[in-house]
């Protein structure tokens, strides 16, 4: 590079217009950049202009652009986003003896099957389409499962069929999914016929403190994976003195194995909106955001449509049902970053910055979006709220006989006969999930291990098959429930390879802020690639353990602290296999 003569250039009219349509709001930078990317106009010059038009430093706009995986400085006409998550990997690798190792080769091999020379193929860490694995995103349209035969038809418009969840499995207890298949998700009239917004109506007849007391009494625990009591969080927000207060729904469902939020939005979007409004009424918030991951294009559109319909019917918006309570929900699309599921990173992203986690404390209930008290809850948590308000805390408690009350959406994947999603009370064992709900292991498959909870979950062997899972007891016994997913693997899958796929995911999604996670995930992946390939060296296990310990102890945020969960569980549950892999 050499120094060029710097001359003043006015901001390009295209950028000025885009900035103007977004009120020159710096928080709208992701929308503006996404639009520029769609037009193929994303380059350092337009990025600098965008920054100038929004009154922010150029590096910030550039940092944001390069942070999110869906944005690219290369103009692209037609894009295939190929899912590179562990479930899709498992589906693709099944039946192959070779184990796919490098990320480039995954996408490369995959692209070969699709006759799309003029298409840009990009990898995505996980598309949230695990029930349609192997999945792809064709110009932002969800497609799958893509077998080699179907791959040829992708460019001709083949998209596959979304999984149908309208019929409950035997033994299911449906609360959040009660109306799945019964209501038309795109019609509020149909939703209203099935009792939508009844929970909100009953909430509005109570005082906000009574609503919080009801939710607290129900024992509803957050469904993002950590299980923090929802009622207590709402109480913190309601008690925080600063205003305005905000409600945020975390729909940045980017963890491999997890797709429950997508199903909830697809089957019953009004249930979520209603839950958010209840939360808003309880916390004293009048504005809310749904932070939905950029890959869920259809779901974001569905939510926007639902919000519009609900506002027209007076179920949301100003003076809801004549109660004087007003509540507005906005949909905010992400652009591809798992870390934005961490609540403080999500808030940073919502504020138009790089999605890097904030220092905690202060926590969002006291210092969240725009520095104001903010309740961030998962889609599933909000979706549970309407039924609790309608039927009462005692009813919700009666659903489960275990420490965590209520029902949970479970995702069952891998080598079982009927993979997919189902709803059941807490306290399910892995064996029940496989045998009672999943129709048992596939023919010729014997249970070897399962990844439970999500990518940041535990890798467990057969000895933990009978542990009833809830947020209280599971983790103590070494098996985590997390967001409620099980990836069941048979004898053909190597534990080291599965762990490698997980580290591949974490290394790609680490935000890079702190050293232990930024370099630790990368180094752990390097070791696991070698081990899974049968080229392990002496000392590998010890180094992996040391990296894992350091990530757990010293990482900045929950992402780095969660990576050791699968590593440690795999190393302790399958110590022999790893020792063998060393030589």
């Amino acid at each position: 590079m050499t120094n060029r003569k710097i001359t003043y250039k006015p901001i390009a009219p295209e950028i000025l217009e885009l900035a103007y349509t977004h009120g020159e709001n710096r928080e709208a930078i992701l929308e503006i950049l996404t639009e520029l990317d769609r037009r193929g106009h994303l380059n350092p010059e337009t990025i600098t202009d965008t920054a100038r038009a929004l009154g922010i430093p150029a590096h910030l706009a550039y940092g944001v652009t390069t942070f999110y995986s869906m944005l690219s400085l290369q103009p692209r006409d037609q894009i295939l986003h190929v899912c590179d998550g562990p479930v899709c990997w498992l589906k693709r690798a099944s039946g192959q003896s070779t184990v796919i190792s490098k990320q480039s080769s995954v996408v490369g091999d995959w692209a070969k099957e699709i006759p799309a020379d003029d298409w840009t193929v990009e990898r995505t860490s996980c598309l949230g389409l695990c029930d349609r694995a192997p999945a792809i995103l064709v110009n932002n349209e969800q497609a799958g499962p893509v077998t080699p035969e179907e791959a040829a038809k992708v460019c001709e418009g083949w998209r596959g069929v979304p999984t149908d969840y309208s019929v409950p499995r035997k033994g299911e207890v449906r609360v959040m999914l009660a109306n799945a298949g019964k209501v038309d998700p795109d019609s509020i009239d149909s939703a209203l016929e099935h009792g939508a917004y009844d929970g909100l109506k009953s909430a509005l007849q109570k005082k906000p403190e009574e609503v919080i007391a009801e939710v607290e009494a129900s024992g509803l625990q957050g469904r993002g994976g950590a299980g923090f009591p929802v009622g207590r969080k709402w109480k913190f927000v309601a008690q925080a003195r600063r205003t305005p207060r905000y409600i945020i729904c975390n729909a940045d469902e980017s963890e491999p194995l997890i797709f429950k939020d997508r199903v909830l939005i697809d089957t019953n979007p009004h249930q979520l909106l209603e839950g958010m409004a209840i939360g808003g009424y309880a916390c004293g918030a009048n504005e809310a955001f749904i932070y939905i991951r950029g890959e869920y294009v259809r779901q974001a559109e569905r939510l926007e449509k639902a919000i519009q319909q609900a506002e027209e019917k007076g179920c949301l918006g100003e003076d809801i049902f004549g109660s004087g309570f007003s509540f507005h929900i906005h949909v905010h699309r992400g652009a591809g970053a798992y870390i934005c599921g961490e609540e403080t990173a999500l808030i940073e992203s919502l504020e138009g910055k790089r999605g890097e986690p904030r220092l905690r404390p202060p926590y969002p209930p006291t210092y969240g979006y725009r520095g104001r008290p903010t309740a961030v809850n998962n889609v599933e948590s909000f979706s549970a709220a309407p039924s609790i308000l309608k039927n009462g805390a005692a009813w919700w408690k009666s659903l489960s006989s275990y420490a965590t009350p209520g029902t949970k959406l479970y995702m069952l994947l891998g080598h079982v006969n009927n993979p997919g999603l189902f709803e059941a009370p807490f306290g399910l064992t892995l064996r029940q999930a496989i045998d009672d709900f999943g129709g048992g292991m596939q023919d010729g498959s014997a249970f070897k291990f399962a990844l439970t909870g999500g990518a940041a979950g535990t890798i467990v062997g057969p000895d933990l098959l009978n542990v009833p899972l809830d947020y209280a007891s599971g983790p103590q016994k070494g098996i985590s429930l997390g967001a409620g997913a099980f990836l069941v693997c048979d004898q053909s899958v190597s534990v080291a390879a599965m762990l490698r796929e997980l580290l591949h995911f974490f290394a790609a999604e680490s935000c890079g802020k702190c050293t232990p996670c930024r370099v630790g995930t990368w180094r752990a992946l390097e070791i696991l690639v070698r081990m899974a390939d049968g080229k392990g060296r002496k000392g590998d296990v010890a180094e992996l353990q040391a990296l894992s310990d350091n990530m757990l102890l010293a990482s900045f945020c929950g992402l780095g602290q969660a990576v050791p969960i699968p590593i440690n569980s795999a190393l302790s549950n399958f110590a022999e296999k790893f020792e063998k892999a060393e030589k």
Partner: protein
Amino acid sequence: MTVNITINGQPTQASEGQTILQVAREHGIRIPTLCYHKDLSPTGNCRICVVEVAKQRFLQAACVTQAWEGMEIQTHSEKVIKSRKLSLELMLANHPQDCITCDVSGECELQDLAYEYQVSVPAWGSKGGRYPVDSDPNPFIRVDMNRCILCRRCVQACAEIQVRDVWGVTQRGFEERIVAGAGTTMLEARCESCGQCVAYCPTGALSNKMNYGLARAHQVKKVTTTCSYCGVGCQFDLLVKDEKVIGVQSNPNAPVNGLALCVKGRYGYDYIHHPDRLLKPRVRRYLLGGSKKPAISKQSSVISEQWEWVETDWDTALDITARKLNEIRGASGPDSIGVLTSAKCLNEENYLMNKFTRQVVGTNNIDHCARL
């Protein structure tokens, strides 16, 4: 409000809102830091300052964790040392093994910590440079991102001290790096070459171009001086080697400016030993001979040799100046003369000029460049 805490078994008190690092430093306990700097807002990025707090599942970064009542802190437990060592190793893994030729060797915070904790570049690390060396054409600042440990002190120094927002962070995870503007050159990203980023860089990622390779920390004598450019009075150290000034370095103890300097103070020192520097007064030749000012021919481009500058001694030069001032004052009156003094002069000199102008010349036409 104070809280009772225990550091390394020693009961003590901390005021509410104080971080562990602040309390430890008050008590003479050294907790190592890299991304932390007292002038910048703490971020907790590097994880070197982690300490063990009783009953906490994770280690806590001392630079950002506030002391609370009953906190029991271990700053150098086995667990802590192990974690610091590994984090250092992870940083070194991405760091070239070129301390032997690196300009900042000897005053590099990473090197000091690696020495203190006896951590070397791991066998698997340092697989060669990932970025071009000396990658930015800025005339003063040398950029070598291979040596960067992503502490982001440069980003903060640029944003919080100089408020130019040149440096930023791009990409994420292992690919993350520091970048100027939208991936442009520094100057295009509004850099004014103040060098604050260099002063705050703990490693050799950002260093000075003008004296790169001229001397290392232990080879120079540091002479603290006050900047002669303007009236602010910034202090810094001149780096002197073999009786020659080879560079300027911020002095953290400078009362006015701390580590901050402007481009002139930090990089405008090359006039000191410049061959073209004026060391004696010069006058036009015609003034020496006492002849009249020669006319400049409009036709000819050749200028009379009477216009040439001639070196002379101070007495002659001052005599000529006094004579000419007298002539002007006699012919056009004292208000035809005006005096501008300079911030490069001492207070005493400026005072004398004031007296000279008002009492000797007899005019109030006096001003100063720092009055603007």
